[in-house]
């Protein structure tokens, strides 16, 4: 494609800079939009990379983020960086940095009018050390009040207050964010595989910005395809529960107490104590969290154990991974108010393995259109080098594509071609694992 160039380099350090300069020279494109995707290995070099890009394309609009890996016709890499250089008037970029989900995403919706949107935002943002301390103190205070609450109403009130704090400082719930956006929307819900302070980073106009939301509006002939790895959902709670029971090896029905995005208890215990009892996992201490994990970018953000919540609205479901963090009230990455309090504890697995993800590529309408897709990053710990099979499949089916491996994406559409298990609200699909989307653009110029 003449008006689209993909520049990648798996290197780090000086090699990366040299490689990038050379490849930008060879690219021969007057890009009006630059999309930059760095990986964790080149996160520290993003500033230098953006300086080079700004020097080369000073007039271009630019955005990007840190991802876990990227996929091109040449290879799949989890290191280095990739840049999409696009010469097209059909892409517009808008951004906001409001505090609450409602404010941030309503403003974003007013800014970008296009009917097809891709929105990137930090679903979970880990702030600076001082703010992390503050959040841990809030957790202790509200958990102290929660365990002394007299009745369920008081418990819910406490959780609601804590949920509002989490939302204003740390979490944009994936399903709630999409509610405020019109048209067809694909959500890149950023959350690193291994967390560190001030992560995940987003890039905007050649600068790094913290906790902001970016929206790419697409005009013209573009379509968004969604895919999940699960069977279709049931028509009632029991139906869906049976399907989940057959799909996952080991399931257990549990009772939770939550409000907003805060989970107070599972079967009468705090979420972390419940997990400890189930799998005898060691709890990460507060000191370990601050010093060993967050400072070294090593806080695990995914887990093979979790809760599957079933939606009251659609009877679809979404999973939330559980980790042994030193907290009393457990935060959720999606708003829980439209879910049943009775949910399912699971040990995760994907039936059919990596081949289940081929379904996303089968949805493409034509071979020669440009495809941009986002794959759930759980494929890295689950399948590691088998990811190359996905790339081989894409290579044999598409002429031009670019894929990224990032945290589990979400999609909002008027209707879907099947009863997706992950459709947790009418028109909104999201799950803690196994989701992917593909943006197919047929007329880029």
């Amino acid at each position: 494609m003449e008006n689209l160039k993909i520049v990648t380099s798996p290197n780090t350090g000086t090699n990366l800079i040299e490689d990038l300069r050379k490849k930008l020279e060879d690219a021969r494109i007057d890009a009006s939009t630059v999309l930059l995707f760095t990986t964790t290995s080149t996160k520290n070099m993003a500033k230098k990379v953006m300086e080079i890009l700004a020097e080369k394309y000073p007039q271009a609009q630019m955005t990007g983020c840190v991802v876990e890996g990227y996929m091109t016709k040449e290879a799949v890499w989890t290191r280095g960086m990739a840049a999409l250089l696009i010469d097209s008037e059909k892409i517009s970029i808008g951004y906001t940095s409001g505090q609450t989900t409602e404010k941030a995403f309503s403003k974003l919706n007013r800014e970008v009018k296009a009917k097809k949107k891709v929105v990137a935002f930090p679903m979970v943002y880990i702030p600076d050390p001082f703010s992390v301390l503050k959040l841990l103190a809030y957790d202790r205070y509200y958990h102290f009040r929660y365990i002394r609450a007299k009745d369920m109403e008081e418990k819910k009130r406490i959780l609601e207050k804590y949920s509002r704090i989490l939302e204003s400082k740390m979490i944009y719930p994936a399903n709630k964010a999409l509610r405020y956006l019109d048209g067809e929307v694909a959500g890149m819900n950023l959350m690193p595989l291994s967390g560190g302070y001030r992560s995940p980073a987003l890039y905007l106009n050649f600068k790094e910005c913290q906790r902001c939301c970016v929206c790419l509006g697409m005009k013209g002939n573009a379509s968004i395809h969604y895919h999940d790895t699960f069977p279709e959902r049931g028509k009632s709670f029991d139906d869906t529960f049976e399907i989940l029971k057959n799909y996952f090896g080991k399931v257990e029905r549990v009772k939770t107490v939550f409000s907003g995005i805060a989970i107070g208890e599972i079967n009468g215990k705090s979420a972390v104590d419940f997990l400890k009892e189930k799998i005898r996992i060691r709890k990460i201490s507060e000191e370990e969290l601050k010093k060993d994990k967050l400072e070294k970018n090593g806080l695990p953000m995914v887990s093979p154990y979790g809760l599957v919540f079933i939606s009251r609205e659609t009877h679809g479901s979404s999973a939330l991974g559980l980790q042994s963090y030193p907290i009393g009230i457990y935060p959720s990455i999606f708003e829980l108010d439209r879910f049943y309090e009775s949910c399912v504890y699971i040990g995760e697995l994907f039936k059919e393995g990596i081949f289940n993800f081929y379904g996303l590529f089968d949805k493409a309408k034509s071979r020669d259109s440009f495809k941009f897709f986002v794959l759930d990053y759980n494929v890295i710990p689950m399948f590691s080098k088998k990811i190359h099979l996905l790339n081989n499949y894409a290579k044999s089916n598409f002429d031009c594509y670019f894929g990224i491996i990032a945290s589990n994406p979400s999609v909002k559409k008027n209707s879907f071609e099947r009863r997706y298990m992950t459709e947790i609200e009418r028109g909104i699909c999201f799950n803690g694992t196994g989701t992917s989307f593909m943006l197919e653009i047929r007329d880029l110029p």
Partner: protein
Amino acid sequence: MLLEISRILSPFTEDPIVKVTALYRIDGVPIFAKVNERSSRILNLLYWLESQIKSSLYYIFTRELDEISFTCYNIEVRMLAVSRTLVLVLVIEADEYTSRYKFDVDIENVVESLRELVEWRT
């Protein structure tokens, strides 16, 4: 040839968690080696590795193994057969598990590229 090998291996040579990137011949002679940490423990490990290459390759081919790897504390040594006469050795020191999973994805690219290079030369 060496320049091309160096280019293919460059994603690993500047990575701080990769302590050693080396390509050995079957007789234990290194064709390419980049050592990022010059400490006695790494040098001792390299010395020992030279004597292990031949037997590692023998096991990889006779037992149809993809690779041989062993872990000592948080140091992981991975030996991957590139061809019938070449072994790629990586010494990785990573505290957290995700870096190791990601390595699996990237190693595949590098080994494939080295294999292509060897075929192209022969």
